[in-house]
């Protein structure tokens, strides 16, 4: 065997082993075929293929892959490669090119002399590209990946130094094969950035000399831009003390390596970002869990009062919350608060506010005094975080006949008075917490009459936006309370929350929603079954209302189930006619909502509907009997409503609302 051949075999054997963890042997003409490679016995099929000088597709035998490669048909000379590996990563072409090269080396010594060096280099480069994919698959972090790449590249090209400079928003970082720091990396990055192709020393020299960089004095220098998805992510480069050592083949190699490495860096960065956002998501979930666990697990029971609370954060974690505690004298204390400034800092502060409220409420009785203390305690933390808190604290009287409240800059609370069916607003009685450490607060005493409702809410409720840019406002909120009274507090809260969804009309929730409702029970109304509802003013949604009414049939005080169903069906039809008519005429394509309630009394079925559409116009023509020979195409709705109901009243309320009152008498139905 030729000396050159031996030299080549010596190089490729360990390369193959390091690439594949397998083994490789060379068989020349006249030589003996081996019985084993690296202690692995050649399977019979492989031995047969060697004898037949066949070119085998990878042969999988007992979990290993075997190749028998003979020279390409147009090459003379007889050299075969037999190789095995534990997995096949497309090695066939690599083995084929090696075999061909060995064949040339054996048969054409003269040619081989000239070609050997170039070919070995070419194989090394081919192998380098295989290795690159290997590194990309295994390296978990960008710095270690870049380290492997520069070291690998330094084995393949003849250069004293190989380096990579990466650039991101935070600046640049460099990695070198020698481990020595790289000088003037920013000059390299800036210059390659504008050109976008490999640059040699001659082109870089003026720029390097301008900043007196020692790089201007090296023998040869070559850099190429690392580009991934169109963005420059860095520079890869070679340096040597020998002048002019980087010829065009090296330029070509570096350009193709740069392309690959650019893609790898991009992919690695994307992976890091993905992992980071997953980690953040996970942490937010934990934070949301902690926040939810801070809410009271149960609400106090007070005779004569109903108490309901609701919270929905707009994001994982929010700044709105509510809490309950017991005053020094035993009465329930309620708090609804909004930490201004969303996101993590606000979320952490909510925990502090919770703790301060619970701790201090135990020793106090007066809401104003409690706010004053909380403000003093929280002020340093809030000031540091550049945050403030609006909060309202309510102490309910044990007899359920009233409450006192104090409000630290919180949005006006709603007090709905049953007797007047009107809303009173309970304004702030001091500054938000965290503004002035010596702020003073005032408490107000309020009496509750049967049926009265106190609603604490956060601004996410009144500032809910619709697609036209309108906000629900206090008016919208009191409309809902008005239309759904006297449904149970829990039902009313449910309709308020539904109304917010209807009002946003598909817009995402932008702000947290927190609600607390206290309702003084009214004995006269407790027996009535009241079912509140809200639907968008669109024909498509009338069905929801029809379903609601039909499903109420089991609540009707009628013995026959068939009759109950019939009464419910008829009432549903009547409501459907009224509501469809309202939507078509009072809204005529404009957005809006219809609120209301169905009430089932002992002798009446009643529907009250409210909307802010145009006033109802009664038909200008009297209803005449239908002529069987020429029946009208329209106008059956009013006939149905008249025939199905005992009473239909419509009135225009103060402030531009329509109220429909539909009654079906149940006495005499059976």
């Amino acid at each position, binding site marked *: 065997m030729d000396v050159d051949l031996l030299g080549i075999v010596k190089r490729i054997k360990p390369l193959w082993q390091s690439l594949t963890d397998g083994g490789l042997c060379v068989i020349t003409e006249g030589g003996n075929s081996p019985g084993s490679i690296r202690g692995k016995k050649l399977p019979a099929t492989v031995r047969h293929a060697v004898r037949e000088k066949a070119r085998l597709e990878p042969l999988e035998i007992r979990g290993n892959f075997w190749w028998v490669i003979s020279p390409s048909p147009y090459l003379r000379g007889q050299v075969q490669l037999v190789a095995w590996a534990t997995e096949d990563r497309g090695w066939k072409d690599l083995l084929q090119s090696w075999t061909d090269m060995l064949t040339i080396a054996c048969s054409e010594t003269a040619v081989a002399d000239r070609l050997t060096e170039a070919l070995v280099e070419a194989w090394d480069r081919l192998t380098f590209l295989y290795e690159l994919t290997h590194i990309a698959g295994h390296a978990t972090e960008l710095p270690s990946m870049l380290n492997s790449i520069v070291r690998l590249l330094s084995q393949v090209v003849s250069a004293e130094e190989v380096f990579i400079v990466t650039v991101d928003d935070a600046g640049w970082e460099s990695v070198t094969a020698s481990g020595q720091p790289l000088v003037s990396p920013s000059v390299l990055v800036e210059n390659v950035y504008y050109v976008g192709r490999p640059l040699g020393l001659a082109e870089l020299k003026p720029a390097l000399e301008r900043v007196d960089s020692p790089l201007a004095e090296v023998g040869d220098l070559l850099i190429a831009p690392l580009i991934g998805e169109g963005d420059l992510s860095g520079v890869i480069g070679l340096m040597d003390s020998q002048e002019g050592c980087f010829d065009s083949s090296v330029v070509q190699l570096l350009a193709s390596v740069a392309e690959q490495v650019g893609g790898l860096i991009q992919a690695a960065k994307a992976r890091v970002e993905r992992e980071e956002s997953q980690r953040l998501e996970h942490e937010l979930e934990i934070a949301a869990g902690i926040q939810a666990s801070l809410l009271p697990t149960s609400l106090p029971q007070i005779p004569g009062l109903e108490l309901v609370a609701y919270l929905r954060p707009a994001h994982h974690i929010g700044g709105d919350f509510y809490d309950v505690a017991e005053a020094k004298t035993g009465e329930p204390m309620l708090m609804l608060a909004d930490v201004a400034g969303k996101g993590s800092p606000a979320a952490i502060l909510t925990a502090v506010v919770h703790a301060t409220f619970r701790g201090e409420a135990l020793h106090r009785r007066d809401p104003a005094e409690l706010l004053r203390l909380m403000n003093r305690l929280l002020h340093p933390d809030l000031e540091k975080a550049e945050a403030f808190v609006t909060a309202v604290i309510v102490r309910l009287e044990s007899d359920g006949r009233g409450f006192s409240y104090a409000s630290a800059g919180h949005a006006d609370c709603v007090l709905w008075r049953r007797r007047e069916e009107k809303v009173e607003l309970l304004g702030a009685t001091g500054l938000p917490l965290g503004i002035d450490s010596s702020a003073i607060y005032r408490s107000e005493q309020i009496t509750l009459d049967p049926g009265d409702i106190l609603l604490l809410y956060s601004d996410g409720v009144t500032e809910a936006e619709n697609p036209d840019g309108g906000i629900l406002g206090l008016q919208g909120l009191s409309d809902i309370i008005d239309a759904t009274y006297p449904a149970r507090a829990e039902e009313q809260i449910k309709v308020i929350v539904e109304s917010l969804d209807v009002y946003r009309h598909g817009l995402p929730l932008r702000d947290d929603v927190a609600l607390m409702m206290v309702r003084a029970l009214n004995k006269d109304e407790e027996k009535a079954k009241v079912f509140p509802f809200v639907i968008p003013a669109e*024909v*498509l949604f*009338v*069905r929801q209302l*029809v379903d609601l009414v039909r499903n109420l049939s089991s609540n009707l005080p009628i013995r026959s189930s068939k009759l109950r169903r*019939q009464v419910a*069906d*008829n009432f*549903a*039809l009547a409501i*459907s*006619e009224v509501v*469809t008519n309202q939507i*078509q005429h009072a809204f005529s394509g404009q957005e809006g909502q219809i609120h209301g309630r169905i009430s089932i009394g002992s002798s009446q079925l009643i529907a009250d509907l409210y909307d802010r559409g145009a006033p109802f116009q009664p038909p200008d023509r009297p209803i005449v*009997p*239908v002529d*069987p020979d020429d*029946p*009208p*195409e*329209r*106008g*059956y*709705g009013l*006939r*149905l409503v008249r*025939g*199905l109901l005992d009473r239909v009243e419509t009135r225009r309320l103060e402030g531009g609302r329509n109220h429909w009152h539909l009654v079906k008498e149940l006495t005499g139905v059976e």
Partner: protein
Amino acid sequence: MMNIDIEYPQSGHVVVRPHGRVDADSAQSLKDKLREIAQTGAESVIVDLHAVDFIDSSGLSALVSGLKALRQHGGVLNLSQPQTQALTALRLTMLDRVFPIFTSVEEALNEGDLLKP
């Protein structure tokens, strides 16, 4: 959405079978379907209300509109098997005097056994 099945049991006869609700949201498609059939010169159309569990005034208007279109082309429109809800709506609007109502599609085809209001 409401489904409408169409059958052609005999030459010149068409059975139209809407399913579910015929209300303000879906009546237009029934109206369009009936007018389209009238254009084809059908002699007799039977709207089978068996699978209609809710009909409102828009649904009734669609039936009247279909009836008028058929009459113009010399055809008739009969109803069969209305459920309690539909029958109530027809009676309250006195449309039970306008439409012949049958107990089944077969009866309507034979034009026998009118469902007596």
